[in-house]
Structures are given as C-alpha cells and as structure tokens.
C-alpha cells in the first residue's frame, strides 16, 4: 500500500487559530481525489491526531480535488506541551499514512 504523500501533490497542516488545526490534502486529479476520498477513513485520521472522532470535521471538495480535515489542536498552540507553534509538522502524519 502506498503512502498518501506518494499519491497526492501536497499535504498541508496549519493552525486555524490557536485552538484548531486544519489539514488540506491536495489531490490534483479527480482519479486521485476519488481514491483518497474513499481510502481516508475518519476513524484512522482521528486516531492519527489523537482526537475524538466526533470532533473531527471533514470536507470532501470535488471542485478542488481536495480532502480537508479540521480537528481541535492536539495541544493548544503555545502551551507548555506544544512542540510545533505553527502546526505544520502534523501534516507528516497524514502524508506517511498508508492507504488502500
């Protein structure tokens, strides 16, 4: 099984304010988008970021060939436990996830 990052053109994670993290998966073509949309399961993504699945927001945006997730930040930005002020490193988790 390939890693997500091998299929898509870019996986980006960013803060959406200090309390939320948003992850955009840019798929480039409808074929890749379709495969990624079906291959990425909400449970697996929530587990990857250590958040409650009920709090995960997902947007499948066909017009952009983008799958987007938003989760409460695994740790609030800038707190003692935060390791990544801008939240960009979390993209690697999704990028390296194996998908069908």
């Amino acid at each position, binding site marked *: 099984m390939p890693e997500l990052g091998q299929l898509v053109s870019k996986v980006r994670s960013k803060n959406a304010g*200090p309390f939320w993290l948003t992850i955009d998966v840019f798929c480039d073509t409808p074929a890749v988008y379709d495969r990624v949309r079906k291959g990425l399961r909400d449970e697996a993504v929530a587990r990857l970021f250590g958040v409650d699945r009920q709090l995960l*927001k997902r*947007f499948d945006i066909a017009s952009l060939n983008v799958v987007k997730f938003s989760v409460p930040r695994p740790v*609030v930005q800038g707190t003692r436990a935060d390791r990544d002020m801008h939240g960009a490193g979390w993209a690697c*988790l999704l990028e390296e996830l194996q998908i069908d």
Partner: protein
Amino acid sequence: MTRVLVPTGALGLGYDRAALDRGVAMRPDIIAVDGGSTDSGPSYLGLGVSKYSRAATKAEWRELMQARAAAGVPLVIGTAGTCGADAAVDWLLDITREIAAEDGMRARVATLRSGQPAGRVKAALAAGRVRALPAAPEISDGVIDACTNIVALAGVEQVAAALATGADIVIAGRTTDTAIIAALPILRGDHAGAAWHGAKVGECGALATTHPNSGVIQIDFDATGFTVEPMLPEAAATPYTVSAHMLYENSDPFILYEPGGHLDVTGSDYRALDGRRVRVEGSRWVPGRYTVKLEGARVVGHQAVGLAVIRDRRYVQNARAWAADVTAQVCQKIRARMGLAAEEFAVELRLIGMDATLGALETRHEMPLEVGVLGIVTCPTAEQAAEAAKMLNPYLLHHPLTEDEPMPTFAFPFSPAEMQRGALYEFCLNHVMELDDPMEAFVLDVHEVGHA
C-alpha cells in the same frame, strides 16, 4: 466600485516593489495591509510586541506611507505590531511619527484600540454576554484578571468609523484579517458577501495567486461580486488559486464568522476573466448577532532551556531510557534542593531526531545519527527556572547510562549552556463577546503627525 490594493500578506514580510508601484498607478481607493495574527504564538500578545524587526517594519511602512501619499488615498493597517495590543498600536504610531518627521510628511492618523480592560470582560461574562467557541478553554474572573493583554477583534464597523474621521492613515489594533479590506467596500454599498469574500481572498496578499511571494494584489468590489488581479505581471489568479484560498488556515472552508454575521461561500462561482484575473459572484453575507472575538494571553510560568547533542552510538540507541533517567533524577534533585513541589515545576527532555516534533503521535521509529536533547524547565519564577536549569546542566553533560562505566561527555554548543526563555504565555480565551454598539469596546483617536 471600490478598488482595494493589498501590498503584502503582513507588514514586515516584504513584497515586490515594482508590483506595488503598478498597484498605485492603477488608482486604488484604499491601501490595506494586515499587521499580524495569532499564528506566531501567545507571547507576542502577552507582551504586546511585534515579531518583526522595527527596522524592517519601518522601511516597509515608509514605502507604504509614500505610496499612500502618491495615490492620495487612505492607508489602513489591521492587527498592528503582530498582536494588535494597545502597546503595539503605540509602537507603530511612534514609527509613523518618526517617518513623517524624517520625510517632512504631514498626515492625519487615526488609531483604533482593541485592548479590553479585564473589568469589561468580567462584566460581560457575568451578564451572560461572553460565549465559548468550539474547543475553548474554561474561563473565570481569575483567568481574565491574569491576562496581561486582552484584545477584541474589530470588524468593518470600527474600521469604517476610523476611516470616517478623514484619516490618511488608520493604525488599528486587533481586527479580523478581513475587516480592513472589507470596510470601505461595505461603507460604499458594494455587495456585502463579495466584500467579505474578496477580503478573505486578499488578506494574505498574493498568496491566492501563482506567485505568493510577490505580495501585491488588487481587488475590485462592486454591486454583484469582486475581481482579483495580482499586480506582478507574471503572476496569475486562477479560479483554482482563488477558491483554494478559502482552505487556508480556516477550519471551515465555506463559512467564515465575522462580527455581526457570517460569510457563506457555498454557492460562490469562480470564473476566469482571462489568464490572470478571476471574477467571483454568489457569495452570501448572513447577518447575525453582533459579537466580537476575544483573545487573551497570560503568564503560566517561566522557562529556561539547555541543549546537548549526543553523537555516541550507544547513547543514541538508548536515548529514550537515558532521557527518562535524567528527567527523574533532576526532578528529584529540584524537589530536594529547591523545595518545589512536584506540581510546581516541570522538566522535559525533547529528543530532536527522534520525536521532537510529534511526541507521542510520532509513527516512525528509526535510529538517527545523533540526537539533540532539548532540556526545558518550567518554574513559577524566572530565578527558579534559571536555578533548575543549572541543576539539569551536569546531567545533560555527563549522565552515564550505567553506574559502572567511564563518565561520558556530550556536546554543548554554547557557554553558558542554559538559555533564559523568559515568561511562558498561554492563549486563554477562545470566546466571543456580545456588543450593543460596535464602538463600545473600541477607542478611536485622531493624531496630526508631521506638524511642527
């Protein structure tokens, strides 16, 4: 029609100078630039300071003041000085006065202050007029009192009031990223949905184009929609780059909450006018209760850090066990020698090369060539943090894996080995406050600068 020129995504980030000149030649109605966000973390708000250098800010602000004078239109900055606290507004006002004096310029400057006294926020909390947003932390009067700075995010009403003073330059404290761009189009009766949506597209400058670093973008607003055009001739806005920008740093790519309502772009239509301009129509503004978002930061401790690098293969292979042992021994020593209780302080060793970015969420476990050990101590006071870091020092330098082996020595890059980080700040508000009058929580002042 209202033409807004946005020189860059944030003052201090830079922009293409020729593109700015081109933008001025296109005769904008206003020049609007963002000065910050929460993205760099809570200490800027906590301290009320800018993250960009004063020299870089002054150099760019001077060029924008000159561009404004050449265009004969207002220049407005939102979230001045990264955080938009009152002290950051004063900082930029001071820079503005200096430039005016040095260049023999005269200007009317309006300042819009967004700082909130704790008393106002506590009264609103008691009156049930403060509402938690999703994933907000718990708040109380104590938390509000502990904030070193609280700001409210101004919307178009407050920016429009500042423009209505006849100001040449508006220095606004914390505003929403979009408000400074949307204010004039809304004031002039352009389509409200288009005003907010176009403002969102333009708030990061040329980020919504093929040449993000060129900075300069122009947005034309009218009665039915808006048109985006980058000012660098080689740059292009396409339906893809423009629509994809709603993804950026937004938890919801279709809905954007603003003071007094929300923007809904679910039905927006993006059309290429040619190879580099995009027309957008169909965006909706949905009015709601008038609320402003609050941001606050407080001190939760003081930190000192130390860094050691482990290159020895056996120690690299056993770095986790080594770090756990060091942490346990140092904590014990701090309790014994400094009299701090376990819950009063923290010692954390982050292993750079292993899991320093992702911590427990890391999924890869490969052996690195070397490991950077970032030792972080957090204590109630700066003096205690300095003391605790000095207790950590000998362990970072010499701690052996077993008792019966020669004493190891690891690589310290600096002397002294410890670095004082100062106060650790935390964001502690993710709430909105209801207002009866948009201006009731904001302070508008007018200053004539450059006059003898």
